[in-house]
């Protein structure tokens, strides 16, 4: 039977430290399409442009689980380059590693539920490591 991955295999590592109580994460990578269609063409043509990546993760507010990320965006004073983190999104023995800038942090609290923090980030520069 082919190997498959599920939610229990997922993990998030920030600056070398694995975060606990992660509920979910997602990652999106895209390549900009630069149009090179000339007036002699009959169909649109493209070449590869800039890559970009972004993602989000949700962490249960269980102990200090989301704090390493949440503290980068929910803070007093201005955000700086020092708030960028090295993030690894892993599943099983696979992972994607990159430098990330936290762009939003949302804390939600609801009766009968454990609090959770929703975090969004953008990838800064190229991916450092990819093992799909």
């Amino acid at each position, binding site marked *: 039977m082919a190997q498959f991955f599920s939610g229990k295999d997922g993990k998030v590592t920030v600056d070398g430290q694995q975060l606990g109580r992660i509920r979910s994460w997602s990652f999106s990578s895209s390549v900009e399409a*630069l149009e090179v269609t000339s007036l*002699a063409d009959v169909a649109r043509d493209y070449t590869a442009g*800039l890559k970009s990546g972004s993602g989000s993760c949700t962490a249960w507010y269980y102990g200090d689980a989301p704090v390493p990320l949440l503290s980068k965006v929910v803070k007093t004073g201005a955000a700086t380059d020092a708030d960028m983190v090295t993030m690894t999104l892993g599943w099983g023995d696979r992972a994607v590693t990159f430098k990330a800038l936290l762009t939003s942090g949302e804390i939600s609290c609801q009766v009968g539920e454990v609090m959770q923090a929703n975090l969004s980030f953008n990838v800064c520069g190229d991916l450092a490591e990819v093992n799909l």
Partner: protein
Amino acid sequence: MAAIPFPPVLPTGRSYSPGRYAQSEFQSLNGATTILRLGSQRHESELSLDFDNITDDNAALILASYDAQNIGDNWVQFDASNGTAGASAQLAAYLGETITGLRWRYADPPQVRSVFPGRSSVTVKMRGYLDS
């Protein structure tokens, strides 16, 4: 003075104006207008070419064409491999000014905008001169 072929770079956008016929207009006090036609040939036609997301090497070819046209007071010729690409033969005759004898020269220096490593967008504005 000699004709210099425009480099073989296909445009991604193009606009053309056929220019005007030389004439003088006189308006009398009652509002009637008299038009004196001073010539039988058009002059100052305009051709604007866009080269979006072309390679930097092709952008350099266009800049070299600008130098070559100006250094020897030459003029530029277009054909289907460059400025008139995708046009019918009838329209290409106008775009290349092969039916009028107007000579294309650069109206302004080419504008080069770098968009990606190795890729640039160039805008070229030509003016058709009626040489004496």
